[in-house]
């Protein structure tokens, strides 16, 4: 299993990565995609909304099951990864790369300090 160092992790198995100033990308972890199995649809209807940390920003549908997606930190949802509309399986094959789900504008980038490191997250799912 893959635990990149350049992202922060949540107990709900999302990751968040600062890309530019207070702009961050969010997705689900390698562990999460493995647990869900083949992902067939990422349903996100919160673009333009400001949400608090741990609020539901969407759902991910696998063949077998459905799971809510929780925002790792407070901010505004700017954009959904449009490629997932046609290729939701990218969440399985490249969860930390092309399988990212939303881009958000963080209210306070310092919120990320409270999230888990790669080492802590690896311990959580071990």
């Amino acid at each position, binding site marked *: 299993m893959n635990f990149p160092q350049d992202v922060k992790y949540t107990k709900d198995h999302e990751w968040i990565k600062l890309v530019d100033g207070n702009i961050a990308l969010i997705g689900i972890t390698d562990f999460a995609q*493995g647990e869900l*199995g*083949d992902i*067939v*649809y990422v*349903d996100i209807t919160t673009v333009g909304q400001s949400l608090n940390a741990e609020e539901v920003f969407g*759902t991910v*549908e696998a*063949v*077998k099951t*459905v799971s809510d997606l929780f925002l790792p930190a407070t901010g505004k949802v700017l954009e959904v990864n449009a490629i997932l509309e046609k290729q939701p399986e990218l969440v*399985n094959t490249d969860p930390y790369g092309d399988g990212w789900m939303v881009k958000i504008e963080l209210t306070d980038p310092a919120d990320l300090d409270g999230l888990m490191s790669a080492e802590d997250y690896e311990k959580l799912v071990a």
Partner: protein
Amino acid sequence: MKSTPFTQKHIALGAKMAEFAGYNMPISYSGINDEHAAVRKNAGVFDVSHMGEFILKGENALDLIQRVTTNDASKLTAGKAQYSSLPNEKGGLVDDLLVYCIEENKVYMLVVNASNIEKDWNWISQHNNKNVEMHNVSDKTGLLAIQGPNACKILQPLTDLDILNLKYYTFVKGKFAGVDNVLISATGYTGAGGVEIYFEDKDGNAEKIWNAIFEIGAASGIKPIGLGARDTLRLEMGFSLYGNDIDDTTSPLEAGLGWITKLNKPSDFVAKDIFAKQKEEGAKRKLVGFEMIERGIPRHHYQIKDAQGNVIGYVTSGTQAPSLNKAIGLGYVTVENSALDSEIFIDIRNNPVKAKVVKFPFA
């Protein structure tokens, strides 16, 4: 949690495991879509040893089976099997099952759902007032389903029995992969063709059979398949799953199982009067197949609504169908909304998502 004769194999092969009906079972190996495609196009092996098997013996065995099941077991001759159901006194279903005729009028095998073994055993025992000899051999019986268009071709070299020409819902007994007393039946839960193989779980039989199948099937790319793909495969065929599509409260007539509810069979059976009345009056709700028109995936228990937002039923099973690349489901709706092409709405996270009633099998 109970194990099957193959639980350690699944773990060793890296399957994703989970509890199902009290057993530690493989949910998936390489991924549901990949496993699903393997069965539809080639061949896959399911461990379904968790299923229950009862042997009923004696001159009154058929009489007992006739009284507790809805199909007409008197039609069975040795070597034939039938799909049937066990009704309860209120006209719901205790279970659905397969009835195998091992020896006409003498020996029968009932194959029941793992989650219902105890319930079914008690129910049938309760009706056994003529001293039919009953054996619950569930824990001593291994069962593999080898399914797919190439399954029989791959397995044929492992036995002298003719399995290539085995007709649907018939079976043979004999030696398979060096193991004696194996029952091979042309049945399954996938609609992909193939056989199910029952054997006594003793003397390393399970290991012998598993290894023989994977050795001979390696060149053809035979794969182990988990319960996840078993569910998507059966759902594409519109086969009912007990606990989802049928249960203690659903009538077989509502569930589209009128074809196994033989009101004219030469024997009375549990709830026959209720079913006769239902048939005369017409069921008030029906299990229908539907496909999503708008994006969304139906799941068990989601509400079904009409265009005005009135609740007209609920989803019993749903998935993204791997072979069809669309989202499909089964659900009960009021009979007024059950006609083909009826527009219905699946309530997905409080949004009405458009779907339409379609024929099933979907595949």
